[in-house]
C-alpha cells in the first residue's frame, strides 16, 4: 500500500530559492492512512512549514509532496487544521463558527443553504462528542480557553476531513486541560480512523498520542530520527507514568538535544 501522505526529498525556502532562508532540506516522510504521526523538534525547525506543504498552502522548490495519491499543486481540501490559537470568529456563536468550513468547502457550500438544520444537528453532535453539549449558542469569548480549543478542533473536523493537521494545538493550555484534550483527540482518532499529523514540542504529548514520532533537526529541517510507539491502544493517561513510557520520552529527548546542537 502506498502512503497516504508522502514527502519525497523535499526542500523549501522562504524568500526565494537563492539567498532565501532554507526552512527544510531533503526531507522525506511517509504516513499511512489512519496513522497518527507526531513531529517534534527544536523551535524554528520548520515544523509549521511541513504543515503548510502537506496541506497545499505552499509548494516546495525541490522534491514532491503527495496526498491521497495525488501530487499537491493546490490546497488539498481534505484537510482540517487547528492551531495553538483557537482563531474563532467573535461575531459568530460556537455553532456558527463550526459551520464556517461548510460554507466554504464543496459540496457542502452548495447545500448548506437548503440543509442548514441538518448541518447544525451534525455540528451539535460533534460538540457533544468533545463535551461541549449545550454550548453551541454561546459566543467564543464566553468559553474558557480549553473549551475554545475544543471548538477549534471541532471546526477542523466538521467537514469530515481525511487528514487532520494539528500545530501545537494545546500549547497555550494549562497542564490538566491539556491532558483532557489529549484524551479528546485520542478518542476522535479512534472513532474516525482519520490520519493525524501533530506538530508539537511536548514529547509526552507526542508519545501518548502517536503511532510514530519523527524528530526534526534544527533549521534547515530534516528528519533525524523516527520512533515507533508500540504502547497498546486504547491508551489511558496512566500509561504516561509507566517506565516504558518514560524511557521513550527520554530517548526522544536525547535526539532533540543532539538536534539542537
Amino acid at each position, binding site marked *: 500500500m502506498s502512503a497516504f501522505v508522502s514527502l519525497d526529498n523535499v526542500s523549501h525556502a522562504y524568500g526565494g530559492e537563492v539567498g532565501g532562508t532554507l526552512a527544510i532540506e531533503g526531507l522525506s516522510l511517509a504516513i499511512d492512512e489512519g496513522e497518527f504521526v507526531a513531529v517534534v523538534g527544536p523551535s524554528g525547525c520548520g515544523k509549521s512549514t511541513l504543515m503548510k506543504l502537506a496541506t497545499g498552502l505552499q509548494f516546495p522548490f525541490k522534491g514532491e509532496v503527495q496526498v491521497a495519491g495525488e501530487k499537491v499543486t493546490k*490546497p488539498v481540501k481534505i484537510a482540517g487544521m487547528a492551531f495553538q490559537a483557537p482563531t474563532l470568529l467573535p461575531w459568530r456563536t460556537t455553532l456558527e463558527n463550526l459551520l464556517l*468550513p461548510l460554507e466554504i468547502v464543496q459540496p457542502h457550500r452548495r447545500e448548506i443553504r437548503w440543509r442548514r438544520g441538518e448541518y447544525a444537528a451534525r455540528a451539535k453532535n460533534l460538540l457533544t462528542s468533545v463535551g461541549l453539549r449545550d454550548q453551541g449558542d454561546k459566543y467564543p469569548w464566553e468559553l474558557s480557553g480549553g473549551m475554545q480549543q475544543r471548538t477549534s478542533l471541532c471546526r477542523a473536523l466538521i467537514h469530515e476531513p481525511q487528514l487532520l493537521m494539528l500545530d501545537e494545538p494545546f500549547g497555550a493550555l494549562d497542564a490538566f486541560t491539556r491532558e483532557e484534550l489529549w484524551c479528546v483527540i485520542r478518542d476522535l482518532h479512534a472513532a474516525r480512523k482519520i490520519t493525524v499529523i501533530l506538530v508539537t514540542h511536548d514529547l509526552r504529548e507526542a508519545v501518548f498520542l502517536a503511532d510514530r514520532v519523527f524528530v526534526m533537526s534544527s533549521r534547515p529541517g530534516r528528519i533525524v530520527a523516527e520512533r515507533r510507539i508500540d504502547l497498546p491502544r486504547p491508551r489511558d493517561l496512566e500509561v504516561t507514568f509507566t517506565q516504558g513510557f518514560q524511557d521513550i520520552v527520554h530517548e526522544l529527548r536525547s535526539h532533540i538535544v543532539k538536534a539542537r546542537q
Partner: protein
Amino acid sequence: MTRTALIIKLSPWLFTIALLVVWEASCRIFKIPTFFLPPPTAIAQAFVDYSGPLTRNSWITLETTLIGFALAVGFGMLLGLLVGWSRTIYAGLYPLMIGFNAIPKVALVPILVLWFGIGFVPAVLTAFLISFFPIVVNVATGLATIEPELEDVLKALGASKLDIMRKVGIPRTLPYFFGSLKVAITLAFVGSVISESVASNNGIGNLMLQAQAQFQVPLIFAGLVVLAIEGIAMYAAMAILERRMTGWAQRSGFAQT
C-alpha cells in the same frame, strides 16, 4: 440606585449648569461688555430673536454635512477595502493618501469654488474630503489584522480571497469602521462650516460670519451652540449605531470604567 451612581449620572448636567452660572456671574460681576463675551442669557435671547434664520441655516448645515459624510462613508469603505485587498494597491496609494491628508482642507475651498461656484457643492465636497481619510485607514487596518492562521484554515479548504473577505475580513473590519464614523462625522462638520464661512450664502458658518460683520456677538455664540448641539447629536447617533452593529466587539469593561 446608590447615591454615588445617581451623582455620576447627573454630573454632566450639574457641570454644564455650573459652567453657565459661573459664566453668567463673571460677565455681570466684571461688567464684561456683551460685544466682547455675551453672557448665556444674552445668547439665549439671540436664540429667541433669530430663531427663524438659526433654524433654517442649521438645517442647511446639517444637510450639507450629512451628504458629505455619506459620500465619505461610501468612498472611504470602498477605498479601504481596495487598499486592504492588495499589497500593491496599498503600497501605491498609501503615500498619496498621506500626502493628501496632510493638505489643510481649507486650502482646497478656493479650488472647489473655482470649479463649482460658491454655495452648497463646495461645502459638501469639503465635508467629504476632510472626513473620508479616517474611514479608509480604519477599514484597511481591520483587513490587515486578520489572523494568518485563520486565513490558512480557510485557504486549506479552498477558500478564495473573496470568500475570506466576505466571511472574515468585512465582519472583522466593522468595529474599526463604526469606530471611525464617530471621528469622521465630527470632521465633516468642520469641513462644511469652513466652506460655508469662506464661500457660501447659507449655513451656520455663513450666518456667523454675517453676525460678526454686524457685530451681533450673541448671535455668533448662538451659532456656536447650534454647531455643538448638532455635533453632539450626530456623534451620539454614531456611537449608538456602533454599539448596535458591533456589540460583540465591545464586551470589555475597560472603556466603560
